[in-house]
């Protein structure tokens, strides 16, 4: 059953060829059997999902209409609230925190009869590119368990790659869906900023955060985006527009289209990654697309801009974790000041502390103009450069990451880790829809990701181009050998 896509599972369930209880049981069994090898989950919602499955079977028995995700197991990154369930953000600060409401995305998935199976691991508060910053445990890459799954949504990417579930949700602030999707050989989509509601997502950098899906194929991505991509009155940045018809649009032919590539920005690519990217471009030419060179020279500054703006926003957003109303309160604290000082010291990990301090610095008087204001201005210029590029093409293609997955612990210098996101960050800064889709393997068997970007609101266009690539290459269907087996055969 693990080989089925989400849409295939839904069809089987609706045709009464399999029950929701069987799907849920088999999913739980697979996680229990295999997840100790990669650690993709922080909590598994066994009881909850079995209850839901039983209600769903009853609903089907009664002949009631079934939702668009009926019987589909879905994993949720542990920075998205599910009412009554732990929402730790992989932080000690929220070790015992139980969400008091459902995020909008959760509500939408539940309304369409999805089976929510568990909460996945992440870098603490989504701050990182390797999932090594989780306060709980490491997550490993299903393609090579010595390697990182990427981050920050490493748990969600690994869970889908290992075929624990066909769909998982992640959040993407600077590449946190796309980079782990590339590392784990699955699809990871970051919608246009405002396309999917952020209500109930624990905020990291509010002007950049966006929720999106991991899937094993583009039809599933289109199916889940038809559910999630709608206006929400609880999020003031939610786009008040009609949902796109993703399932219909992804089938359209890309013949005669123009793809832009910022060739000079890709100069520094290492040989393996460069060759892989060239092959992808050749595949698009075969599909009838024309390739043009575009200027995105400002993107070389995207990491500097991002680490000013995102830390500034994070330092503001994370001020709410003060040890007073919920979350960690230090046992050592005897005064109110000590409640703040000690709770944060004990509750936050080193990367989170660093970013709060850095964000406070770039916002402090005397430095605000030199850092924060300057970064906002360069962000404006980047948006303008993207607009100019999209005058010449419908889609921009570049690698998702400068390299394939690296061994766990291999990158110690924080700046080197930040540089991992050189190709992904700009989409967040400009609010663009962007996807990472599987694009082949390195000589040591690790997946490459191809990234596609479109103008704001053209989410379906990104998926259409990824879908055409998927049909032409078939990379999306590859399963990590370690996990391409039934539970009893290992």
């Amino acid at each position: 059953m693990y080989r089925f896509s989400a849409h295939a599972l839904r069809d089987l369930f609706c045709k009464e060829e399999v029950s929701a209880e069987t799907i849920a049981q088999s999913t739980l069994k697979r996680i229990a059997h295999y997840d100790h090898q990669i650690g993709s989950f922080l909590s598994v919602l066994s009881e909850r999902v079995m209850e839901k499955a039983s209600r769903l079977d009853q609903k089907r028995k009664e002949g009631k209409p079934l939702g668009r995700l009926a019987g589909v197991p879905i994993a949720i990154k542990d920075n998205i609230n599910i009412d009554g369930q732990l929402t730790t953000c992989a932080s000690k600060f929220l070790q015992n925190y139980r969400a008091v409401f459902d995020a909008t995305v959760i509500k939408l998935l539940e309304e369409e009869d999805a089976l929510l199976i568990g909460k996945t691991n992440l870098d603490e508060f989504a701050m990182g590119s390797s999932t090594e910053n989780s306060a709980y445990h490491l997550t490993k890459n299903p393609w090579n368990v010595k390697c990182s799954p990427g981050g920050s949504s490493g748990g969600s990417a690994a869970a889908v790659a290992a075929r624990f579930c066909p769909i998982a949700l992640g959040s993407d602030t600077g590449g946190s869906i796309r980079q782990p999707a590339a590392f784990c050989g699955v699809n990871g989509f970051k919608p246009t900023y405002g396309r999917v509601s952020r209500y109930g997502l624990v905020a990291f950098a509010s002007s950049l955060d966006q929720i999106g899906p991991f899937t094993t194929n583009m039809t599933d991505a289109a199916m889940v985006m038809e559910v999630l991509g709608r206006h929400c009155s609880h999020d003031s940045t939610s786009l008040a527009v009609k949902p796109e018809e993703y399932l219909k649009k992804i089938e359209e032919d890309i013949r005669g289209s123009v793809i832009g590539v910022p060739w000079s920005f890709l100069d520094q690519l290492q040989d393996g990654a460069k060759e892989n990217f060239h092959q992808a471009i050749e595949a698009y030419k075969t599909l009838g697309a024309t390739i043009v060179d575009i200027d995105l020279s400002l993107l070389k500054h995207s990491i500097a801009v991002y680490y000013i703006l995102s830390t500034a926003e994070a330092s503001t957003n994370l001020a709410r974790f003060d040890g007073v109303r919920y979350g960690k309160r230090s046992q050592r604290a005897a005064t109110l000041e000590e409640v703040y000082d000690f709770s944060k010291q004990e509750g936050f990990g080193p990367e989170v502390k660093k970013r709060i301090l850095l964000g406070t610095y770039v916002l402090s008087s005397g430095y605000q103009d030199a850092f924060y204001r300057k970064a906002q201005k360069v962000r404006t210029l980047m948006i303008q450069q993207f607009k100019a590029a999209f005058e010449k093409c419908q889609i921009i293609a570049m690698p998702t990451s400068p390299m394939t997955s690296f061994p766990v612990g291999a990158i110690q210098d924080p700046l080197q880790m930040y540089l991992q996101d050189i190709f992904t960050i700009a989409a967040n800064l400009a609010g663009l829809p962007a996807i990472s889709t599987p694009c082949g393997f390195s000589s040591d068997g690790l997946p490459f990701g191809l990234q596609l970007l479109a103008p704001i609101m053209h989410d379906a266009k990104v998926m259409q181009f990824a879908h055409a690539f998927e049909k032409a290459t078939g990379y999306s269907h590859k399963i990590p050998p370690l996990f391409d087996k039934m539970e009893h055969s290992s």
Partner: protein
Amino acid sequence: MEFDEKEVDKLAKLCRIECTEEEKKALCHHIAGILKYMQQLNEVETQGVKPCLRVQETHANVLRDDEVGDLLPREKFLENAPAHVGGMIRVPPVIKFTNP
């Protein structure tokens, strides 16, 4: 621009995060490196450029009707509270009394 441990001290106080000496050393080293990297933005000419506040102009001043929506019941809220008494969050004394 110098970034030293005194700056870390100042920032830690502003953020209300207690840091050990060892933490301060590492933070100072890392933040100084990142700030140095950020200097590259000085290469970009930004004279007369408007700072980007939001990527979509339609997002400015979005208001909803002032209506009562779903409320969070007090009991449910208090389940996550580190300490509470009489239906209220409990914290150490804010105002201190001293004997004359």
